[in-house]
């Protein structure tokens, strides 16, 4: 080829500037876990669910140290949607993700299985500047409201608005991720921010006032998050999946024990949210209620409701099959081996405890 | 034309036109080997085009051009050319420019280096071998161009108004240089110029061309001893005659 010599010498000249791109091959022996939240603090961590406990107490790292398998935690500022991208591009094996983003992913062809719930019946908060004239959801009409679309806050927020006779279109919604929303609220760039426990950080600094907590309107106004695994990984390493689930259940059990309450909040405080804020988020006696890993009738009903909401709000174009998505045999094995079958109470579709 | 194989350049009924515009019309000329022919004419008479056809830079024409019996189909190392804009490669020094002409010459590197040194000396540029074109004066740059044209020891050297862009004094000096090189190298030279004096001073014969369409109007023999004396009455007579030829409306010569 006549240009061969030409290209070769040009390539050599530029290759010396080429730094080794860090696309190192994925050792099959590494477990990569995506977290649909932005990691805060150094080293980056998060809080508010037993998943955080498992990460902070390095339970998985200890479990797999003997086998020489590395455990890698990846945080995503883009939350649930960004996790979907990582799943699509196969750069993670497990993921802690909210109900809506997973449904969006499943609607667009992502092949995953839900193993257990990592944080359930979590409320949505609305924060406003301290001196704002907004006191309830109804006052949000026409105001600039920050909302991170596509995350599990989205459908709960829409339901809460609908309960107060409002629609998303009647607000001037600005699409902001968690951190940008906090900054915008602090600098009064927006009038209100539909957000999660991160709002406590601003409240502690006196930069925000929380006017609404959705869980007070009943379990239907709460969002769920779960641990899922990609089909490929599950087929390739079912044994590893079982050990991950079992380890997780230990973590969930420790996080649900009221005795460990202070130690738990102290550990979660490493993510930048104060212990007092965690106390407010988890009133006494609710740890077991909030950190239950069970996939019961209530959970399945909630996922189906979110799927319907997503279709109604035109977030997805064709209905999503929720049945067959949950793979609970690993959870059941774990509960049996750890003798925790009765640790958490299952709930019926309406949210009432069963048996 | 008889098919005697001559060592020089045979131009036989050559015609050429750009689209509909006729540029050369039935030009025939036989140049003997070692002869110095000046081609004189106003702009637009096709003299530069004729030179490009001889050089082989342009092959879109009717009729035939043979050099040493061989039909001209493309450029050749046997036919050097020097342009009015010296066309030296600005990223190469003078010596490198002359060497660049030998890239495809059948010589060893040592022979090439020697040829370059010889021709730098031939055109009197010792000491300027490592100068870049933009560091040379117009006259010196033309000297390099001539050296580059000669280094392949071509059978014919074609010069397209080589001194057109130079001042009168440099032009005079380079004309003498060219004549000296011609007498030394003994090769056929064809000089295209619009300067009557230059044509007579250098040429064994002066071929006058007329424009629209380009054709040979007259061929005058300059049988005067070299180096010519510009004050020689015969020189002056010929010059006036040619100048007069220019002034009248062109007479079509058989």
């Amino acid at each position, binding site marked *: 080829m006549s240009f061969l010599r030409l290209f070769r010498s040009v390539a050599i000249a530029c290759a010396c500037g080429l730094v080794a791109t860090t696309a190192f091959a994925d050792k099959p022996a590494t477990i990569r876990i995506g977290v649909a939240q932005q990691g805060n603090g150094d080293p980056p961590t998060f809080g508010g669910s037993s998943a955080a406990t498992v990460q902070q107490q390095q339970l998985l790292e200890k479990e797999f140290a003997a086998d020489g398998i590395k455990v890698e935690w990846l945080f995503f500022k883009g939350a649930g949607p960004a996790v979907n991208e990582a799943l699509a591009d196969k750069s993670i094996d497990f993921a802690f993700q909210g109900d809506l983003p997973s449904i969006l992913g499943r609607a*667009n062809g992502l092949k995953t299985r839900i193993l257990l719930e990592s944080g359930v019946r979590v409320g949505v908060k609305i924060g406003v500047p301290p001196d704002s004239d907004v006191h309830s959801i109804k006052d949000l009409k026409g105001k600039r409201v920050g909302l991170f679309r596509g995350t599990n806050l989205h459908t709960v927020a829409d339901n809460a608005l609908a309960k107060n006779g409002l629609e998303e279109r009647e607000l001037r*919604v600005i699409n902001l991720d968690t951190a940008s929303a906090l900054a915008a609220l602090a600098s009064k760039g927006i009038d209100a921010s539909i957000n999660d426990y991160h709002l406590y950080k601003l409240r502690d600094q006196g930069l925000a006032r929380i006017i609404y907590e959705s869980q007070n309107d009943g379990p239907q106004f709460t969002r769920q998050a779960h641990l899922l695994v990609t089909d490929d990984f599950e087929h390739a390493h079912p044994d590893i999946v079982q050990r991950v689930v079992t380890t997780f259940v230990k973590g969930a059990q420790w996080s649900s024990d009221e005795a460990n309450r202070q130690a738990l909040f102290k550990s979660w405080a490493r993510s930048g949210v104060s212990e007092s804020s965690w106390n407010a988020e988890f009133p006494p006696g609710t740890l077991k209620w909030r950190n239950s890993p069970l996939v019961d009738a209530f959970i399945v009903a909630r996922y189906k409701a979110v799927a319907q909401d997503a279709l109604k709000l035109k977030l997805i174009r064709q209905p999503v099959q929720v049945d067959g998505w949950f793979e609970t045999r690993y959870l059941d094995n774990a509960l049996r081996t750890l003798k925790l079958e009765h640790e958490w109470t299952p709930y019926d579709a309406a949210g009432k405890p069963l048996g | 034309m008889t098919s005697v194989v001559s060592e020089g350049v045979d131009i036989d009924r050559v015609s050429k036109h750009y689209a509909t515009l006729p540029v050369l019309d039935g030009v025939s000329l036989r140049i003997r080997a070692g002869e110095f022919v000046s081609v004189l004419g106003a702009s637009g008479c096709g003299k530069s085009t004729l030179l490009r056809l001889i050089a082989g830079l342009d092959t879109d024409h009717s009729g035939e051009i043979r050099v040493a019996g061989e039909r001209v189909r493309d450029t050749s190392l046997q036919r050097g050319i020097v342009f009015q804009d010296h066309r030296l490669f600005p990223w190469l020094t003078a010596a490198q420019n002359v060497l660049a002409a030998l890239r495809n010459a059948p010589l060893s590197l040592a022979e090439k280096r020697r040829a370059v040194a010889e021709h730098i000396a031939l055109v009197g540029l010792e000491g300027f071998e490592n100068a870049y074109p933009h560091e040379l004066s117009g006259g010196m740059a033309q000297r390099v161009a001539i050296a580059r044209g000669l280094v392949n020891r071509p059978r014919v050297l074609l010069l397209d108004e080589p001194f057109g862009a130079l001042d009168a004094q440099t032009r005079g000096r380079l004309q003498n240089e060219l004549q000296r090189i011609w007498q030394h190298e003994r090769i056929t030279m064809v000089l295209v110029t619009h300067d009557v004096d230059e044509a007579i001073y250098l040429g064994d014969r002066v071929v006058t061309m007329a424009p629209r369409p380009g054709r040979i109007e007259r061929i005058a023999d300059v049988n005067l001893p070299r180096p010519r004396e510009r004050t020689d009455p015969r020189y002056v007579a010929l010059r006036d005659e040619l100048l007069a030829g220019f002034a009248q409306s062109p007479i079509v010569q058989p």
Partner: protein
Amino acid sequence: MSDTVILHLEAANNQIPTQTQTRRWRALGWALAPWVLPAALFALWWLGCERGWIAPQILPPPARVYATFVELAQSGDLLHNTLISLQRVLCGFVAGTLGGLLLGTALGLSRTFEAYVLPSFNAIVQIPVLGWLPFLLLLVGVGEPLKYILIAHAALVPATLSTLQGFRNVPVTLLEASRVFGYTRWQRIVHVVLPCAVPTLATGVRLAFTKAWLALVVVELVASSEGLGYLIVYGRQLFQLDLVMAAVVIVGAIGFAINRALDALERRLRRGLPSAFR
């Protein structure tokens, strides 16, 4: 002049002239050539999805992207977002270009003003639009003003520099000639400097728009709730790649169309002037 290099390359190979029949085929081939690459890519894309080589969530099939495009158009979202984007880019572009023309003229006219202002202008120009984003996010918040300022900044830079260059390119000979005829300073500016500067200004305006359009997309990607750039982000968050691709195509098409229009306008402006000033 542009094809000369290649012509001679081919002449160097001495190709033999083709007969009329093959020449007609070559002409046809030549006319279709620009569409070969896009067609090949499209076929590869369509086949890839059809055969399932690529998972739909990685690369949605063309039919789906087209359906999304039609849905966007019918639902009025396309028009709504396009209008908002155009409104933003036009406001920013007009503000930036006017600012640039004024600043450039001021710089061009008075050397002292230039001595004071140009170094600072250069320093600010070093920092890209994106560099200013976090700074402005804090100062101005996420609303529309942020977008207008950033787009105006993006347009201001090429407009200013082109105007300055326009003034600098005025041949000194013309200025002297006008002085000979007793032109006052103002007359010189209006009758000599401006006509000469027009072609460079025209290029500056075209560049200003291209830069404004690029800045618009960036700003809408990072912080917005409406606009074409937002459609891309929205698609990304809902994990609907077909929406993303449809939005990218729209952004590209509009950018391309407007650039071509400005090109044509610029050419017409330049054609009116003797090439000396080109």
